[in-house]
C-alpha cells in the first residue's frame, strides 16, 4: 500500500529552490535510501517530508490511514544535546508527546510504550543513565526508541551513522533492518552509498541528476555506476 507519494516537488527556502521536479513514492514496508552529494538538498527534502518546511511547488500525498504526525524522526545530533542533563527514560518518554491532544502528563500507556521500545533497543539497563554520558551508538539507539514511541509506521533517519565507529555502524544498520523486517517503513538519508545499496530496496538519488527506482535499477544505471565506483555492472 502506498504511504507517501511526492509529485513534481520543488523544494527550498524563500531565496531559491534547491531541488526541482522531484517525484517518488514510498509503499508500506519499503526501505528507501536518499543519497546525493553534499548540498544537493537531502536535508531540505527530509524537513519537507516532516512538515517542517512547505514545498515551494508540487504536492505530497499521504496514503490512507497515515496521519500527518505518524512519522518518527531520527534527527542529527544537535550541539545543545551534548551537554543536556536528561536521563534515557526522560528522552524516550518524550517521544510519546504529540500535538493531537493536550495532556499535561504522561499516561500509563505512554510509559508502557516507552518501556517496550527501551527493551526493543536493548536499553533497559541504561534507563536511568544520563543521555550525555552514553556513547554515540547508545545515544542513537535512545533517539531511535524515542522515534518509535512517536510512530509505528514510518521512520525518517537523517544520517544515522555519522560519527560512529565501524562496528557500531553495522550494529545500528542491523537494528534498522530488523525494524524494517517488522513492517516499519524506513526512509534514510545517507552519505554511505555502499550501505544504502546493501540495506535499502529503493534508491532516491538527488543532485545534478535525479534517479528514483529499485536498488538493482540504480546499480545498472550510469549514475549509480559512477556513484558506487563500480564501472562494471554487478
Amino acid at each position, binding site marked *: 500500500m502506498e504511504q507517501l507519494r511526492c509529485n513534481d516537488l520543488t523544494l527550498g527556502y524563500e531565496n531559491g529552490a534547491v531541488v526541482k521536479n522531484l517525484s517518488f513514492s514510498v509503499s508500506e514496508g519499503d526501505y528507501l535510501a536518499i543519497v546525493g552529494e553534499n548540498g544537493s538538498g537531502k536535508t531540505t527534502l527530509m524537513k519537507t517530508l*516532516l512538515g517542517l518546511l512547505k514545498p515551494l511547488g508540487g504536492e505530497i500525498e499521504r496514503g490512507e490511514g497515515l496521519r500527518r504526525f505518524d512519522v518518527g*524522526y531520527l534527527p542529527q545530533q544537535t550541539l*545543545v544535546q551534548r551537554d543536556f*542533563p536528561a536521563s534515557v527514560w526522560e528522552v524516550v518518554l518524550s517521544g510519546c508527546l*504529540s500535538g493531537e491532544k493536550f495532556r*499535561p502528563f504522561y499516561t500509563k500507556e505512554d510509559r508502557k510504550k516507552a518501556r517496550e521500545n527501551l527493551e526493543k533497543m536493548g536499553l533497559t539497563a541504561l534507563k536511568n543513565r544520563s543521555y550525555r554520558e552514553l556513547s554515540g551508538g547508545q545515544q542513537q539507539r535512545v533517539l531511535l526508541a524515542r522515534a518509535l514511541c*512517536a510512530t509505528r509506521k514510518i521512520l525518517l533517519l537523517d544520517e544515522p551513522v555519522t560519527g560512529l565507529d565501524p562496528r557500531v555502524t553495522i550494529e545500528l544498520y542491523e537494528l534498522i533492518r530488523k525494524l524494517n523486517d517488522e513492517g516499519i517503513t524506513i526512509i534514510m538519508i545517507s552519505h554511505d552509498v555502499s550501505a544504502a545499496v546493501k540495506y535499502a530496496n529503493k534508491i532516491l538519488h538527488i543532485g545534478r541528476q535525479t534517479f528514483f527506482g529499485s536498488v538493482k535499477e540504480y546499480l545498472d544505471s550510469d549514475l549509480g555506476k559512477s556513484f558506487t565506483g563500480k564501472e562494471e555492472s554487478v
Partner: protein
Amino acid sequence: MIEAFQKLGQYMQFPFVRYALIVGVLIALCSSLLGVTLVLKRFSFIGDGLSHVAFGAMSVAAVVGLTNEMFIVMPVTVVSAILLLRTGQNARIKGDASVALISVFALAFGYLLMNLFPTSSNVSADVCGTLFGSTSVLTLTEQEVWISAGLSLVTVVVFVLFYNRIFAVTFDENFSKATGIRTNLYNLIIAVVIAVVIVLAMNLVGSLLISALIIFPALSAMRVFKSFLSVTICSAALSVSTALLGLFASIMFGTPVGPTIVVAEAIAFAIFWIIGAAMGAKRK
C-alpha cells in the same frame, strides 16, 4: 550564634521583614524553574537584556508618575521578550546582537529620562537602587506582596502543566515540531513567563543582577545532577535556600540585599562545581 538567632527572631516581628522573606522565596523559586531551559537553549543573555528593558520602562513609569509601575513595566517587558526570542530562533548571531542593542539602549534611555526629569533630589541613589535592588524588597506594601504571590503561583502552575513539553522543546525542537507539538507556542509561553519573572525579581535583586538569579542555580544543579527532573528540583531548592540565606545575612549585617543573595549563589555554585568535579574524578 544564639544572639544572632534572637536578633533574627526580633526582626521577624516586623511585617516588612516577613513580606520580604515571602516574596524573596517566591521569586527565587520562579526564576530558577526556567533557568534550566534558558541555559540549555543558550538564551542566558536574554534575561540580562530584558532586565535592562525593564529598567528603562521603570524610569518611564517613575517620570510619568504612576503609582504602580507594574502597569507599564510588565507589558513592555513581555513584548520585548517575545520579540527577542522570535529573532533568536531564526539566527543565533542576529539574536545576540539584537539583545545587546535593545538592552544598552533601554539602559541609556532610562538613565537619561531619570536625569532629565528627576523625581527626587538624589537621582544617582534612585538609579543605583533600581539597578542593584537596594532596599525595595524591604519596603513592599501588602498589595505588592499579593501581586507577587499571585504571579508566582501562575508561573509555577504554568511550568508544571507544560513541564513535559518544555522539556521536549528544549531537548529537540525539530523532533517536537515533527510530532506536531506547537513549538512556537511553547517558546512564546517561555518568553512571557521569563518576562514576568524578571519584572518580579527586580524588587529583590535589582535589574542588573537578575541574570544571576536565573543562571546560577541551574548551572550549579547541572554540575551534580544528571536528569532534567533532578536538575530542575535541585535548582529550585538551591535557589530558595540561597535567597533565604542571603536575605537573613543582609538583614543581620546590614548589607544590600541583591548583592548578598548573588554572592550566596556564587558560593553555592563553587561548592557544587567542586562536588561535580570530585564525582567525575571518582568515576574515572
